[in-house]
């Protein structure tokens, strides 16, 4: 029931700066809010950590999966799944949902430049991906005895950041091309096949050499090749360089699509 209360009118708000805020102030506010949202989003946390760990343990649980590739490759596959999950089901879904609700329109009427709104969200996703990578690598070391040199850990984290650009740009492209959050949810799940599952066969000819070639140069395949190389720097070869180049090309293309067709409002 509505209870009429005495009116207290805000006539003197706190401090009146009447100036355009500085970029660090805007970023601080956005990052704090976006990190809070990320930490409170149970679905995002589950996708970030549980899913890649389940896949990691599954890939090491059966001899069948050893046919897919060496131990580093299977760790790379778990990392790739984690990145794809965070970017496609996490990032793009959150953006689509917030767009439908009008969250972005409310942010856009503030002095925050639009690029800061999206950059803040992307930085939070990159941080989530790095945290996921740390957890997966520690689990791989503790439970599957996949130990890396310090140089390999460093290179792997650099490549994870690099690879996250590919998957986040795919997520941006999806949310740029698809307006409805429900449709995006459905398409995002299907997108796992070309983006992640296909790449699982990039070191295996069990479905023939043509399939292996397609798999190797798929987005997931290039990232898995790149991460496998990073985890074993002595084996970094021309294929790894090519994987780096192709994943860069994928990032540029998908980011271009995502920026070109992205709309801030749902209507």
């Amino acid at each position: 029931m509505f209870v009429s209360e005495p009116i207290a009118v805000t006539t003197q708000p706190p401090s009146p700066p009447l100036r355009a805020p500085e970029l660090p102030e805007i970023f601080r506010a956005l990052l704090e809010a976006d990190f809070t949202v990320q930490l409170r989003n149970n679905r995002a946390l589950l996708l970030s950590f549980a899913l890649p760990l389940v896949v990691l343990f599954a890939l090491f649980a059966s001899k069948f999966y050893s046919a897919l590739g060496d131990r580093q490759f299977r760790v790379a596959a778990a990392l790739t799944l984690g990145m794809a999950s965070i970017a496609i089901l996490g990032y793009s879904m959150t953006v689509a949902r917030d767009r439908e609700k009008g969250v972005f329109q409310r942010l856009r009427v503030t002095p925050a430049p639009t690029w800061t709104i999206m950059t803040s969200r992307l930085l939070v996703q990159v941080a989530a991906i790095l945290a996921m990578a740390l957890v997966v690598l520690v689990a791989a070391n503790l439970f599957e005895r996949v130990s890396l040199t310090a140089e390999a850990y460093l290179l792997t984290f650099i490549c994870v950041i690099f690879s996250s650009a590919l998957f986040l740009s795919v997520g941006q492209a999806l949310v740029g091309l698809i307006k409805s959050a429900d449709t995006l949810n459905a398409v995002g799940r299907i997108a796992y096949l070309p983006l992640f599952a296909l790449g699982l066969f990039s070191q295996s000819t069990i479905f023939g050499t043509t399939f292996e070639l397609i798999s190797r140069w798929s987005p997931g395949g290039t990232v898995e090749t790149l991460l496998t190389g990073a985890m074993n720097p002595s084996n970094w070869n021309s294929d790894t360089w090519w994987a780096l180049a192709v994943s860069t090309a994928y990032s540029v293309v998908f980011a271009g699509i995502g920026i070109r067709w992205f709309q801030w409002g749902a209507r």
Partner: protein
Amino acid sequence: MTGLALQVKDLRVSYGPKRAVDGVSLDINEGEIFGLLGPNGAGKTSTLSAIEGLLKPTSGSILIRQVDARAHPGPAKALIGVQLQSTSFQSELKISEIVKLYAGLYGVPLTQAAIFDLLTEIHLGDEASRRFSQLSGGQQKRLSLLIATVHNPPLVLLDEPTSGLDPQARRQLWDRIEGIRKSGRSILLTTHSMEEAQSVCDRVAIMDNGKILTVDTPAGLIEKHKNDANVLAVARGQVTLEDVFIGLTGRDVRE
């Protein structure tokens, strides 16, 4: 001397071939509450959206306290507070965190105590840990208005601020709007409510088909148009603002 809080000149906004705003010009004085009245699709929200920077006008100029909003959107946005027609915030944030976020975006650092004080002022102190979606319609509108004014802007833009509210909540919000004006700020609001226009606004513009048809005080509009044939045709007894509105914009129901 009283200056102008907002100057809009010959504003035009198009959606493809459709012209939503067609040469709108208006001035809003400091400390003035200015109402935009119009049927659905008249161009009120598009006009507001262009001033807020959500829509890119095809032509025209927008000066907010002499700052060119089209050339310098950042500084111009710092001078306005906005309450959108339907507002939503990140569902994972508590309302105290929402206030902190938006204060931060305007460069206003707030302590937890200051946030609590602000929420208490609008009778939401006990709701500080709740989510926006858990608030009632009236509470959501009060919070939105608080966020729109958290940086003490000289110009506040309110898009149908009382739509969907019960009479008590609407009266409360009118008092808050009046309070904002008393602190020297100007307000541009859109509304469908003639009662709101008469109770709250110093001046009112009636819009239709993207154009401003007439501007004056509510009483001045009645006086100016009380003998128009179209107005007399719809009047039932003494001419009211609603009669003027329907007389100027027609009886057709808009989608």
